[in-house]
């Protein structure tokens, strides 16, 4: 009996080792890069101005966290980016649905979307400064303007493409137009709409940060460009790490929302069977 237990234990050890190796493979190069960063910077191969040691950068982030500066700045940036993204999502979905339902709305918006989608909207930043000033309003509106096109495009294509038989059978069963929209069209179009939102979210972040850099007014972007101008390279790298983490969390958050909203959908069920 002892032999069986030994074998089983060996199996567990092998499993643990394999798990450990897989974990190392998944993170090893990131950790190696971070260690290399620290050693490279400490050895002063390049000047500390160009590449400050990682530990100094982390120390700065810790200090900002304790002093309360980081939560405030991060909050400002997230507020602008998420407000812009949410408005873009609401109005984008609204316009997209209307485009699929009404010929005249579609006639009006189709050329605007087809030109506006690929154009670099960020070129309008100075225009937004002139019109709406240097504060939150113009940053949020700039973000909306940059992020709304993929949402409109995805929503219009998705609602247009909903299976006509679904709509006909709902209508046959006596559903009102409003019920058809809420119960049939939007759920059926949801996966594609969320894909549009997943394109819009990184754009919102990029544009909010550029707006903060150009207009100032604090936030992570404003602080980073300030740090760069005052040759505070530790501040610049701390900013990059903070922005990278914020971006990662937001994008993962939207992925989770997607899975939550699409629990009924094949794609989520396929994921859960893995």
């Amino acid at each position, binding site marked *: 009996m002892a032999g069986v237990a030994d074998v089983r234990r060996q199996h567990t050890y092998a499993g643990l080792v394999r798990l450990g190796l897989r974990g190392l*493979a*998944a*993170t*090893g*190069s*990131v950790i190696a*890069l971070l260690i290399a960063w620290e050693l490279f910077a400490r050895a002063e191969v390049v000047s500390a*101005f*160009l590449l400050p040691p990682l530990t100094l950068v982390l120390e700065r982030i810790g200090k900002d966290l304790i002093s309360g500066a980081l939560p405030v700045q991060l909050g400002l940036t997230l507020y602008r980016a998420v407000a812009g993204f949410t408005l873009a999502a609401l109005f984008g979905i609204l316009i997209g649905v209307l485009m699929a339902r009404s010929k005249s709305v579609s*006639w*009006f*918006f*189709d*050329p*605007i979307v087809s*030109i506006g989608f*690929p*154009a*670099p*909207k*960020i*070129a*309008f*930043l*100075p*225009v937004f*400064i*002139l*019109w709406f000033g240097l504060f939150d309003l113009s940053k949020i509106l700039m973000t909306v303007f940059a992020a709304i096109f993929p949402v409109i495009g995805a929503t219009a294509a998705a609602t247009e493409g909903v299976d006509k038989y679904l709509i006909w059978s709902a209508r046959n069963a006596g559903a009102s137009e409003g019920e058809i929209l809420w119960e049939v069209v939007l759920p059926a179009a949801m996966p594609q709409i969320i894909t549009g939102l997943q394109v819009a979210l*990184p754009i919102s*972040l*990029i*544009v909010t*940060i*550029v707006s903060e*850099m*150009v207009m100032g007014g604090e936030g*992570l*972007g404003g602080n*980073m*460009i300030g*740090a*760069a101008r005052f*040759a505070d*390279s530790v501040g*610049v*790298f701390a*900013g*990059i790490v903070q*922005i*990278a983490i914020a*971006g*990662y969390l*937001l*994008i*993962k958050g939207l992925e989770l929302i997607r899975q939550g909203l699409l629990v009924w959908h094949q794609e989520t069920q396929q994921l859960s069977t893995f």
Partner: protein
Amino acid sequence: MTSVLARYAPLALIAIAWEAAPRLGVLVLPALPPFSTVVLAMGRLVIDPELYVHAGASLMREVAGLGLAVFIGVVLGIVMAWYTPVRVLFNPLVRCVYPMPKSALIPVMIMWLGIGHLSKIGLIFLGCLLPVIVSAYNAARGVETVLIWSAQSAGASRSEILREIILPASLPEIMAGVRTALALSFVLLVSSEFLMAREGLGYLIAFMGEGGIYDAMFATVLLVSAIGFLADRAYLALMRRTLAWRE
């Protein structure tokens, strides 16, 4: 022809509204010159040789940064998909950095490379590299193994398989990824020229905005948008031609 006119008629409506609003004083936005003065400014702009100095600088940065990103990104993405050591090394890095808002790199690029061409090229290169790597990697991983097996059994070498099977089969997805990178590259180009430049179209817009030359500023903004739009359309046409064999 008439269908094209009908299709783009809403833009004419917007142009008319743009002309009327400041003249009638309906829409009280500061610094909105009537559309006709913007068109006139555009006319003056396109015959001004200085525009081409700025446009040339922007074009050079765009082509160098994006070209490098596409070349290195495609190679790295495919190699990552086919050689396990390279995948183990790069995959975590790529997954970790991919969601970062690329504009966060602007201040580092100023510090490292100054305010000349190099910092914009570096920014566009780094920003566009990740979407290209990810699309090439996903494309190459998604190639049907049956295709590869049959090539192997027909005696194809590894490099032949790469050239004759993997590259053509991944081309559609790679080209779609490059289209995303193209759009991103314009955003990064214009943003960085707003913030740190002495030439380039983004710099020109910011310069004229600060100088209060609003008609020329609007003309340049429209010009940059048009360039971005036309670049996308040209790329789309190239994509359709290159991928025509699929039909």
